[in-house]
Every structure is written in C-alpha cells, then in structure tokens.
C-alpha cells in the first residue's frame, strides 16, 4: 500500500482526535484517584449510565444540548450518593476495599441498565448541526469529532482553572497531600472529597453522552472504556491532569499510526507503551512517586 501524504496526514489527525476522546475518558478516573486515592472500577459503568441518561434526556427534551448538561448533573448526583453511603465507610481501609466495591457496583449498574433499557443497544443520532463531514484540506473528517475535540479542550481549561486558580482547588490539592493537616486547619475534607467524586463521575457521564453519537448506546459500552482510561491514567501518572492529556494524545496517535504499519498490533500498542513507561518511570510520565503506597 502506498503511503501518500494525504493518508499519513489523515491517519495522524485521526489519532489526535481519538487521543482527545481518550483524554476525556481518563480525566474523571485520574481526578478521583489523584485526590481520593480511590481506584474507581465503576468508571466505565458511570460512562455508560451517562450515555443512557443522555439518551433519555435527549428524547424527553428533544435537545442534544440539554442532554449534554443534564446527564453529567444526574450522574454526578448519583456518584456523590455512592461516595457518601458506599465508599466513605471504606476510607482508611486500604486501596483494595473501594476497588472491590466499585467493581461490584459496575456489574450492578450494567445489569440495572439492561433491566430498564433492554439488552440490545439503542441508536443515538448525531445532532443535526454537527452531522456530515468537514473538509480539512487533505481529507474529509466528521464534524462531530471536531466538536468533541473542542469540548475536551474547554473542559480541560475549566478543570485547570478550578484546581489551580480557586481556593476550592487549593483545598483539594492540600487534601490530596495531607488530609490530616487540612482537617486540623478546620476544613471539612469529606465535603471536598464528595464534590471531587461528583465531578469525576460527572465527567465520565459527559464522556458517555459525547460518545453516544459516535457509537450508539449499549449496556456493554463502558467495558473497554475502563481499560483505555486505566492505561492513559497509568501512563500519564495517577492523578495528574497534565499526564492524562499527554498520555491520551500519545496513545491515540501511536495506535493510529500503528494501523498504517501493522494493523494487527494497533490495539496492543497502548499496552506496550504502558509496559515501557512502567519499567522506566513507574509513577507515570507526570505522576508523583509513592501515591500508591
């Protein structure tokens, strides 16, 4: 096969776009881990529930844009309820307790969705405004994917502002470093953690709604999401926003370029990256050492 400039350019751009989606999938997981040291195995399930709530909201309101706002809020509220009554009693018990709990929770959510919405998938049409392809000069590219990239960029900027530039962010960061001292200073850390968990699951739901027009919705749609989110989080460094961005784009581009050279290896490429990073820099590209200890 001939490697023309157009083909390579399109492949590279496709990889970046895919990477943006990977970033979106990983950010919520990374945030919760970085601040709470909770490994949220139900991340993929929250993603899937978000897509279904989005579908439901879009049908009821007739607007994709409203669904894009409603679904993250509903799922964030549900996520906060999970933190308050399920996960909070497990703090201080070792990292595997919340891990097992969320693992079980993910199964319950998938079965729950199957009971409510049925076992087979449902269609989710791309909003009319974003249908079709946009000409990028070297090829046509789906307009909707360009929109997703823009949303990811905005989301990351807002998150960065929230964490680095507000007093709430200051408490979050301090709480992540040393919750005891923060508590001694008179800050209600558990409230902060509740909110962080809500934001993390809300972002998972946002990713779900944004993914729905790309692949429709089905109860199993969250399963592989968890894998991707974990790889990106581990490569970037647990809990690092910057890490999630760089790692997500890296994994997307490498996967895409691998398709050109050796397509069968495309899916494995992300695990090769992860293995290499873990060997050379076990805390990930931008991670703090010792977070898992």
């Amino acid at each position, binding site marked *: 096969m001939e490697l023309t400039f157009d083909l390579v350019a399109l492949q590279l751009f496709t990889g970046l*776009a895919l990477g943006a989606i990977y970033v979106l999938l990983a950010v919520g997981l990374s945030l919760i881990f970085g601040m709470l040291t909770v490994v949220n195995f139900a991340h993929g399930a929250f993603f899937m529930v978000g897509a279904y709530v989005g579908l439901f909201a879009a049908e009821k309101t007739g607007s994709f844009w409203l669904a894009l706002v409603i679904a993250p809020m509903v799922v964030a509220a549900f996520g906060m309820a999970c933190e308050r009554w399920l996960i909070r009693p497990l703090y201080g018990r070792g990292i595997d307790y919340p891990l097992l709990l969320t693992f079980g929770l993910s199964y319950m959510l998938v079965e729950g969705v199957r009971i409510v919405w049925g*076992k087979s998938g449902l269609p989710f049409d791309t909003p009319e405004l974003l249908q079709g392809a946009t000409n990028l000069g070297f090829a046509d590219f789906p307009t909707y994917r360009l929109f997703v990239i823009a949303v990811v960029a905005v989301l990351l900027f807002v998150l960065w502002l929230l964490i680095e530039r507000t007093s709430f962010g200051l408490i979050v960061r301090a709480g992540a470093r040393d919750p005891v001292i923060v508590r001694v200073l008179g800050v209600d850390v558990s409230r902060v953690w509740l909110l962080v968990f809500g934001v993390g699951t809300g972002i998972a739901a946002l990713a779900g709604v944004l993914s729905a027009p790309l692949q429709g919705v089905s109860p199993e749609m969250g399963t592989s999401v968890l894998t991707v989110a974990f790889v990106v989080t581990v490569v970037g460094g647990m809990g690092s926003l910057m890490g999630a961005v760089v790692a997500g784009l890296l994994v997307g581009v490498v996967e895409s370029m691998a398709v050109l050279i050796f397509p069968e290896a495309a899916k494995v490429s992300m695990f090769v990256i992860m293995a290499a990073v873990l060997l050379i820099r076990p805390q990930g590209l931008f991670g703090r050492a010792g977070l898992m200890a």
Partner: protein
Amino acid sequence: MRHASTCRPLILSLRGTALGALLAAAGMAHAQTIKIGLPVPLTGPYGAEAKDQVRNAELAVKEFNDAGGLAERKAELLVRDDKLNPGEAATRTLELIEKDHANFIVGGLSAATQLSINNVTKLRKVVYVSISQSDVINETSDASPYTFHEALNPHMTTQAVGRHVFKKGMRIAFLTADYAYGQEMTRGFTRVARELGAEVVGEVKHPLGQQDYSTFLPRLQAMKPDVLIFNNFGNDNRIAIKQAGEFGMKKKMRFVTPILTYTARVAGGASTYEGVIGGTQYFWGIEDKTPSAKAFNTAFKAANENRHPSDYGAMAYSAVKSLLLAVKSAGATDSDKVAAALSALKYDAYKGVQYYRGCDHQSVQSVLIIESTAKETKDPADVFKVLSVVPADEKLLRSCGELGFKG
C-alpha cells in the same frame, strides 16, 4: 436342602419382576414427555436474540403439542443460559443430557458455543440441531451422524450476497473482525469475487469488541473500493458502519455486510444502516409471496403480543419444527431413528422447502438479499426491503468432496 434350592430362584425372580415393573413405571413417567434442551445466551450481548429464539422454539413446541404430540407424548422445552461462553455451554448441555434426560438439543448462538455443544452431543449420541452461523460445523472434523445445521453458514451466505452485489472489474475491500466468523466470511467472499472477476483490493482486520473504528478508515478509503464489506457482527457491525458513514465513505462506495440482522438495524437506527445491503435467512416481509411465512408470522404474532419474529429467532422455530416433524415420522425418540428421519425430511416450516443435505446435514435453503430502508417507517418492524430471494440450491454450498466426505 432341596427345598431351599428350588425356592430361592423363585424368590429372586419375583423380586426381580417387582423391581422391573417399578423401573418400567419410572421409565414410563420419563418417556411421557419429549425433552428438548435449548442452551442459548440469555445473558450477555446477544440476550435479545436469545430471548426471541426461546419464544420461537416455544411456538414450535406448542404447535406440536396442540396437534396431539407423538401418540399422546408431549414435548417440553428446557431453556438454559449458556452466557455465550463455550465452557458454560458444554456444562449446561451435559447437565441437560445427564441430569434432565433431554432427548434432543437445539441452540447455540455463536460459532464457538455451537461447536462446544456439538462436542458433547456427538459423544453422547444425542441429536443436535444448531442455529448459528458456522462453516466448521459442516466439516468432517465436527460433523457427526447426530449433528444437523439449520442456520445458514458463512459460505452459502457469502456466495448468495456476492453473486447479487459483485460485478466484473469491481474493487472489493473488507473490514473484518479477526475471529472465525469474520475470517470465514472473507474466505467466502474472496472466492465468489474471483469467480465473477471482481478484484479484492485489501482487508483491514480489527479485534472483537472494538468501539472506535476511525483509525482503520483512512486505509480503507485509500484502497478506493467500489464495495466495502463489513465482516463483523452485532455491536461491532453497527458501530463500524455508523463511523464509516460519518467519514463520508457511504457516498463513495457501497456498504455490504454478510448478515444484516434485525436487532443490529434497530440498535443502529435508520440513518446508520440506510442503503446497506446484506443477507439473511429470514425476514417477515416475504409473507406476501410465501404461504408458510404468512402462517408462521400470524401464529407468532398471535402468541407474542403482535411482535414480528426476528431472523435469528425464526431459526429456532424452524429447527425445533423440523426436529419434531422427524420425531413424528420416526414414531420414536431414539437418536438413530430421529437422525435418519431428519435426513429424509423435506420441510417447509417458514420460508419454503428445506432439507438436510446427506453428507454434512446442512439445511439446504433459500438466502434472502435485503437492503435497509431509508427512513423510520410507521411500522417499526418494517426496516428492510427484500431485493431478491436466492432459491435453495446445493450449488451455494461447498461440495461434500471439498468438505472431506468420502463417496
């Protein structure tokens, strides 16, 4: 001494007959019902199809019982969940045969579970009618006197679809799920393309359960095919076709998929599948021209709140129907007699006359070529138009000799 020695055999034989009578009575109770085991993946991604298969099998059993059964012996369906897992399918099948004394097995909704069920039934000499697509089940390695295949197989599906779509000089590309199903489809299409003088310009393989196909699409576009064939199934099929459409590829080439299923079409929506051509073994829309389809649709709708039978579901009906017809004509339930009756059977369960070919017990049957309609219609089940019905013909199958059967 003498007295005792004459008496003992008498007592023994008395006890023997009493026990024998008791056993015979117990045996009679067992013999009353004809048990058909149905292992299908009720949980998991094909749960919807599996449920519909149960409904269809139930209808066939009910019709048999309403018609009086086999000399007052009624049939009973034993449904088990194989969870789409070959190990689970084998265990459930073994239980059905050993513990529940199932006389026959029907079921399996993937090539892998089907082959593992067949491994069990082959050894136990139990008649098995399989209802999912597989080429291997026709081959000598897996064939047995007790194995019957009611579903289409990838080879005949691709021959029928290929003959309809391919023209001399056309450029054909494949997007293939990298497992038995996809590989068998590619093999079949490649063969028919060669026969018709169409050119296969390339193939991109993807792993099962892929959720983003964007990275595969630039390569496929660069091959500049006239026809792009999606050799994948279920969610993979739906997502791949949707994303390729959004890259604007549907305007440049014809989208084809070997098996266009009702559930994938409903899950994907009208715009995703618009204009996509594929094969199927059944669509209820043939009822205008096929009396048995009309009768079947009517009976199914009456029993299931006016719902139409689905493609994969209807196969379970036809499988159980043909099995029970054979039971009736054999007048017995033992494996050898029923297998012989199945081999001799000509049946028209729901779409015209079918029969199981002698060497590999593949059901020789028609293949429907369908196209997905453009808009959501008033009747939500009215999703396809039938482009052509390729009549039942052994020419669509690999020959017995090619499969390794002798003489």
